[in-house]
């Protein structure tokens, strides 16, 4: 347990670790899923696997937006970027994600007008300053980024900016959790609920997980102590025979979420009947599209989108890893053909993808590099 000593609050961490040992039934194997990719990153960074007893297994969930986006959507978006009038704008996270014919960055190198923006409003600004071009914002993300896209679209409409559109890939976390619970090869005992998504949606949308599925869920912060406390709260519920939604991250997450953010999302988006997720397949009502009132700014209606479906490279097992059926290192390509420098699948691109996290902190593990540096 040498990592523990190097954490901040190491006394509290040690106490929490002891509490986990006291609460965990040694005859039982616990499978807990952290839904959020940010949690996955933190768990690997802090080496929490080494702090938890062996019978508590953390399963990495689908909460990494670039990881769950099927390749066909990237190809569809890039196909539109080939139109001479189109400027393809996306967050930096998207730039290295491979499509069937290369990533947005590779398309840029081939001469397409691909730009990084850091905010959807900056894509709208590009449209204002390039009136003879059409700026298409390739929107991705869960409920943490969807409200910002929505508010940007409301501004575009209010200002009557017509050379702007959104290629909407926003997804919602609840149906993904439902799909995982419905998956026959998945047995889970509880969930560590996402932190920042919950600042928007609050805790209420998780109630069915506790009530109908009988699984405890604890919304958690990102510090090592937060995550360990979330594990304590889950174990305590199981020991006491309770299944509830609990909020460990009260200092940031209000129970009711962010009403203004939910309001703008409801104004601009409605649910698609179904949407394809990498690894999880088609999930009904799991993604957002623009309402008819915003059709003028919906890239999928402004342009003719082919709707290509691209299967992942055969040898890559992104889907199995995304569902938590395989560990990253069990994929045949892991660390060989597929590395953060030359990613084959999206899970190796994003720092929140479980493959990149595993590669950076476990695969490259050396005695010195993994140590948690106590910040000054």
């Amino acid at each position, binding site marked *: 347990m040498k990592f523990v000593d190097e954490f901040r609050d190491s006394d509290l961490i040690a106490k929490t670790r002891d509490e986990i040992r006291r609460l965990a039934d040694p005859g039982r194997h616990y499978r807990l899923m952290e839904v959020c*990719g*940010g949690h996955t*990153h*933190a768990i690997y*960074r802090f080496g929490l696997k080494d702090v938890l007893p062996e019978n508590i297994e953390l399963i990495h969930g689908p909460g*990494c*937006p670039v990881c769950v986006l099927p390749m066909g959507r990237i190809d569809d978006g890039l196909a539109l970027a080939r139109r001479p009038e189109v400027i393809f704008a996306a*967050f*930096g*996270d998207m730039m290295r994600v491979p499509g069937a014919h290369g990533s947005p960055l590779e398309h840029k190198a081939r001469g397409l007008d691909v730009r*990084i*923006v*850091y*905010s*959807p*409003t*900056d894509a709208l*600004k590009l449209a*204002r300053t390039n009136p003879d071009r059409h700026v298409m914002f390739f929107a*991705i*993300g869960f409920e*943490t*980024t969807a*409200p*910002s896209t929505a*508010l940007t679209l409301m*501004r575009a409409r*209010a200002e009557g900016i017509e050379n702007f559109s959104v290629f909407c890939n926003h997804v919602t976390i609840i149906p993904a959790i439902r799909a995982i619970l419905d998956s026959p090869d998945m047995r889970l005992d509880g969930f560590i609920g996402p932190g*920042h998504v919950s*600042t*928007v949606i609050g805790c209420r949308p998780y109630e069915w997980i506790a009530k109908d599925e009988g699984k405890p869920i604890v919304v958690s912060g*990102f*510090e090592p102590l937060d995550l360990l406390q979330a594990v304590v709260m889950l174990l305590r519920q199981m020991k006491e025979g309770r299944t509830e939604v609990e909020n460990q991250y009260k*200092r*940031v997450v*209000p129970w009711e979420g*962010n*009403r*203004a*953010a939910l309001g*703008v999302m409801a104004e601009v988006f409605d649910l698609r009947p179904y949407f394809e997720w990498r690894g999880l397949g088609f999930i009904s009502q799991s993604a957002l599209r623009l309402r008819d009132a915003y059709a003028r700014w919906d890239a999928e209606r402004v342009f003719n989108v082919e709707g290509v479906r691209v299967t992942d490279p055969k040898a890559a097992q992104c889907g199995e890893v995304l569902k938590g059926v395989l560990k990253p290192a069990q994929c045949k390509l892991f660390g060989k053909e597929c590395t953060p420098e030359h990613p084959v699948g999206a899970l190796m691109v994003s*720092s*929140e993808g479980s493959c990149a996290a595993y590669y950076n902190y476990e695969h490259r593990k050396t005695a010195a590099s993994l140590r*948690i*540096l106590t*910040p000054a």
Partner: protein
Amino acid sequence: MCLAIPGRIVELLTDPPVHLAMVDVSGVRRRVDLGLLEDDLPAVGDWVLIHVGFAMSRISESEAEDQMRMLAVLGEDAAAMEEVRGYGLEGRDP
């Protein structure tokens, strides 16, 4: 994109219906959109968590410090500062 970046509001640039603020993130000042906190607008001196140029929640100063330290420990601080420097939010300058 998934980074939650803590910043302190140094100036309100609101011109309803658009609410903007000048925010200080580790010494870098950029405009940030407050439209998603419209129900309860923060004041000068308040700390907020920023996602993709939008303040998404109000937090305490100590939470802001913790979050900045977390970004550093996760090796995301450079990406966070690149994101903040990249915000080009337009002002309707008062």
